[in-house]
């Protein structure tokens, strides 16, 4: 199975082991172009591992991953990135030594040709490239309303803003596939609402395909077209968000009984 032509990402029978632990057991999934696909499941069920397999950090021991029909498992993370996959991390992974602007500029890395010699002769060689990419970055900054924080150092801004900077960095790469690992962890209601808005705006503006891991069920139902539910490294359900979440298997393993109203 290679998937239909409008599948951006296809994972086929992925297996990933860590020593004795089997973190992913024959997981298959296909993400369609332009959709927002949710990945949910209990803690330790292998969501992040699956995402890490896709982005090349933990290459799967078995199975096949294709991006737009091209096989990508076995490739190094940076190669996969340059093929158009961008992601954010469960624990914010920004570059602490840089300003917000430089962090976002880093997102343009694949479009730039870093070269010590070019740096040496900056005014003649590298300046044009810098300025062109800067324009693109400013667009994203506008989109995500990051302008006021542009020149701040990333570690002094609040976590919510940091997550947004991370999103901006990923968007700057103009990816085919955007992977978000718990973008709303540790946010309150208000911040969650903003984040959802940004994701939707970005998807609309850039025509993205999104793969998102999230534990907030209200967000998942609101955002995702389809979801995959993992448990113990195995698929227990897949399908449109609302129906799948109501699936008794999912409720038992993941959601739990609804709390008493009283």
């Amino acid at each position: 199975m290679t998937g239909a032509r409008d599948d951006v990402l296809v994972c086929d029978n992925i297996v990933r082991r860590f020593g004795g632990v089997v973190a992913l057991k024959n997981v298959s999934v296909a993400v369609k172009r332009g959709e927002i696909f949710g990945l949910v499941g209990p803690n330790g069920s292998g969501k992040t591992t699956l995402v890490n397999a896709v982005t090349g950090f933990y290459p799967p021991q078995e199975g096949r991953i294709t991006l737009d029909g091209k096989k990508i498992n076995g490739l190094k993370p940076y190669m996969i990135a340059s093929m158009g996959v961008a992601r954010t991390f469960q624990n914010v992974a920004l570059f602490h030594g840089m300003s917000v602007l430089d962090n976002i500029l880093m997102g343009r890395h694949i479009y730039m040709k870093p070269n010590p010699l070019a740096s040496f002769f900056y005014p003649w060689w590298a300046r044009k490239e810098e300025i062109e990419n800067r324009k693109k970055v400013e667009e994203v900054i506008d989109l995500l309303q990051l302008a006021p924080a542009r020149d701040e150092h990333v570690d002094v801004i609040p976590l919510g803003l940091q997550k947004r900077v991370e999103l901006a960095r990923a968007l700057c790469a103009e990816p085919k596939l955007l992977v978000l690992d718990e973008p709303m962890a540790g946010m309150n209601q208000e911040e969650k609402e903003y984040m959802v808005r940004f994701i939707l705006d970005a998807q609309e503006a850039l025509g993205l395909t999104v793969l998102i891991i999230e534990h907030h069920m209200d967000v998942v139902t609101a955002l995702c077209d389809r979801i995959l539910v993992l448990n113990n490294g195995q698929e227990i359900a897949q399908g449109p968000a609302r129906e799948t979440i109501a699936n008794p298997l999912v409720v038992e393993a993941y959601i739990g009984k609804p709390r008493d109203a009283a």
Partner: protein
Amino acid sequence: MAYFVELLINGALTGLMYSLVALGFVLIYKSAGVPNLAQGAVVMVAGYAVWLFLSWGLPVWLSIPAAMVTMFLFGLVVERLLLRRMVGQPVIMVVMLTLGLEILLRGLVPGILGSAPKSIDVGIGFAPVIIGDVFINRTSLVGGIVALLLVGASLLFFRTRLGTKLRAVSDDHISSWAVGISVERAIGISWGLAGIAAVVAGALWGSSQGVDWTLSMLLFPAIAVVILGGVDSIPGVVVGGLVVGILGSVIPGYLDSIVGGSTRDVVTSLIILLTIMVRPFGIFGREDIERI
């Protein structure tokens, strides 16, 4: 053949003598998470301490315990003055701090007590142990046995509750505090213990080469030992010591006269390099757990 056996045995014993220095390093790393590049200098200070007590006329059996007490206190003081403020700092800062300490000690102690080599006699005697055509160095023999005893004691120590607490401290200072472990005291204790190990190393090495600042150069082979064995592994100290000692004896034993230079440090350097390339965390060392 006898030649080979002799190189092997003396190498192994010398290696265990390195383990004495390395043990101090591991004790501190395992319980405080601090890579102590001043351990060579600590051994030097310990050697001077033993010499000082001997020169005051104390007998050996008293001088060494007295030096141990001194060095334990010394460890506490180092923690108090220096390490306490380094909690949570990046590794380069800590490495450099210990190097600064090593430079400071190397200036201070010989500066005050004199820099010409001092002799200490711990009464081990001179004559080699002779088995067939194999001559075994008596000091190294004693050193090897003591090293094994100390390593055994350290192993038992880390099984105790206090030992577990020290390991917790090396993992995460802040959460140790949060659950009520006194990080300061733990680090102090680990430096104190390393000071005690240093006394044994200083006394034995000092008795064979004299006490002067060159004792601090034992750090280099000791580093090879800990890298090979694993920076936080007590059994690794023994295995690392044996390998570093044996290779550092056998290879130069056959190669030096051909090359016309001493290859021991080359062997030591290569052990460090190859270990890091092939198995960065050494034979028994723990890996960094990095979850993405």
